[in-house]
């Protein structure tokens, strides 16, 4: 007969002190969103636009290239085809924003073209160290679920931060949605949201949920949560890694600053 308790104790502590204290985030070598340097763009070149499988990279009639990270699946195609290195691989995966417009690349400091920023809703103080999440899979490939499950493994150990998954929407503060929203999951999604008590928050997790990704559209899918539910936090990624999800949850709780503005990650 095995004494599992003894075996567990002997294994020692494997939980990372990150992010509250310096430590390993576990994402060594993992790619994030491609970094965009518009100054390096060559006039008349549109290789990235035709290579991008999700339409995240677009070109204006004047030939100016832009990227919407809410639609980016980090497939790295643009970094492969770009002749000048205007798109460059990076480890920038912590891409959580409160305002979706911040996922669209524009010159730093400039205002979004579609009007002033909405005022984001803040999570009340009493939820800051005790947040309960209802996860809802609205048609993901299971990549996001796999990374959400990883948050509960001893390395990330999400519970130490006072964040928990709950089976019932009645006990949930946050609805964490993955997937592009399939036609059959739309009603269950809305009903789950309705069943949640106020104040309730919504997080679009993964590029399918933030902008449709590679699965959105077609006969069976919507284009993510936009226009279906009010979203308080957007986290693109395909899938966002556990550290990115953890970072995003702490951004929502105002325990970490949102560092992405104008589609650019500010370097600390």
């Amino acid at each position, binding site marked *: *007969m*095995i004494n*599992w*308790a003894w*075996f*567990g104790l002997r*294994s020692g502590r494997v939980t990372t002190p990150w992010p509250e204290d310096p430590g390993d985030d*576990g*994402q*060594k*070598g*993992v*790619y994030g969103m491609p970094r965009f340097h518009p100054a390096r763009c060559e006039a008349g070149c549109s290789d990235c636009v035709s290579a991008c*499988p999700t339409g995240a990279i677009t070109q204006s009639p004047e030939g100016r290239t832009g990227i919407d990270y809410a639609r980016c*699946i980090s*497939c*790295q*195609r643009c970094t*492969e085809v770009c002749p000048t290195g205007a798109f460059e691989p990076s480890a920038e995966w912590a891409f959580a924003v409160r305002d979706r417009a911040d996922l669209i690349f524009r010159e730093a400091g400039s205002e979004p073209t579609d009007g002033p920023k909405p005022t984001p809703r803040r999570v009340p103080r009493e939820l800051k160290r005790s947040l309960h999440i209802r*996860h*809802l*899979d*609205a*048609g*993901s*490939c*299971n*990549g*996001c*679920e*796999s990374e*959400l*499950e*990883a948050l*509960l*493994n*001893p*390395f*990330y150990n999400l519970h130490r931060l006072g964040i928990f*998954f709950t*089976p019932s929407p009645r006990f949930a503060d946050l609805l964490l949605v993955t*997937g*592009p929203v*399939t*036609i*059959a*999951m739309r009603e*269950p999604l809305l009903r*789950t949201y309705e069943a949640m008590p106020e104040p309730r928050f919504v997080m679009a997790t993964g590029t399918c949920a933030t902008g449709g990704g*590679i*699965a959105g*559209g*077609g*006969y*069976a*899918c*919507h284009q993510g949560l936009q226009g279906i539910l009010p979203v308080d936090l957007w986290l693109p990624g*395909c*899938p966002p*890694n556990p550290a990115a999800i953890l970072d995003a949850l702490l951004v929502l709780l105002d325990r970490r600053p949102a560092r992405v503005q104008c589609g650019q990650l500010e370097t600390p």
Partner: protein
Amino acid sequence: MRPCTARIVSAADLLATLGELLPTRDLDPHRRLRMAYARKMRDGGLEVLYCLSQGAGHPYLMLRVRPDGNRLPSLANRFPFMGWYEREMHDLFGLDIDGHPEPYPLVLHEGAAHVHPMLQAPPDLPIQFAEAPPRVPAMIGPEIQRLPFGPVRADIAESAQFLFFYIGEGILHYHPRLFYKHRGMEQRFEGSSLPTGAILSERISGTDSVAHALAYCQACEIALGWGPPRRAVWIRVILAELERLTNHLHYFGALAKMTTLKVADAQGHWLEEQVRQINGALTGSRFLRGILCVGGLRRDLDLTSLPVALDAIEADVTLYLGKLDDTRSYLDRLIGTGRLTREIAFDQGATGPVERASGMDRDLRRDLPYSGYSDLRIEIPMQSAGDAWARACIRRDEIRVSLTLLRQCLELIEPGPIRTDQAQSDPDPEGEGLGWSEGTRGALYYAVHYDPKREIFERVKIKDPSFSNWRVFPFTVEDTNLMDYAINEASFGLSIAGADR
């Protein structure tokens, strides 16, 4: 279609031809139908392709049938698992199946607007949908209770609805309603290019990214006559086995969780996390995405630190699996649970570790070797009891085999080119190809049809192993009790995204 032999059969002769080809129910896992799918022809009609395996080491046979006035006879009364393929073809292509034992919607639920989406170009808006209940047998009796569970279930789970009809603890009837997550991924390939196809295939079933990309790439390569260079072939095997190792470790974490072993649950998921971090450091993706492409690899990998990383984890994995085997409460919950007989496994189309646990000795890595597997010594673990314990034993032993295969690859691999875009042999005259791989969960097929210019796809069919095993699973649930359900489900290790596509 390369590399298959093809036979054109009329709709009227279909059943008789299959009667000749598969005359007896001999439970031979190498001689049976593999899948069926429809495609739209340029003349506006349909063609249906039935893929048959004709024995280990023999190429597949494709029966190609033009339906008679949009009708075909059902094969489901003779080959029960074909029922799902036929219902899918009805939902997506409007093919009428005569004499089907379960003529109900499958992929598009009751409540979806009556359209057949694969006959049309991708629409701007998704099809109209209003929820409606599924078709299930009437259950009449004062004691019978009905429990619909899902589609939003407890924990972090994929969406599906499970309907239980039960008396006390005993399950009378179980109906898994899948396809809530049907994304129409096969249509996503229509009109897409070779590189986009690889990126799509990695996102059909996230935890099987490599197995999908591998089957996809091989289907395209055989159609185009491209032969990927040796180094690419070895790296593909390394990635495929790393994926298997990751998924199997996840499986044991989940099984330990279901059998309420808290420490074993944590330890299993910690081992999985360590392999995910190895994957991330090696490829830039914890899911090993973004490396495979048609013709080889998108970029070369630095494998120098992999042997040391694997050595570091192997002892822990062996110790962990040994301790699970010595835990009486764990064995108690698994032995005898969810027994799948060889007859049902054969008739209902079980694949992968599920069929190997029920005595069906089949594994594509050995039987129809692809990539570098023909040059490797590969042992296929077998069990015959068909219960949850047998399924766990298969996965346990496959972890050991995967580690051995990884070592063999790392010894054999040499520097060299990693990609080709030149035909080494004649391309398929019709621009068609069939590719396969043995994923963690079983046999996986991609059939690709190019447009006449060989630039974009007209049709891509994906056969995911979970589509097969979800069909089988209910047969192990009925007449068992509710307490064992979650353990039995975990022992199957199913993916819903893969089945739903």
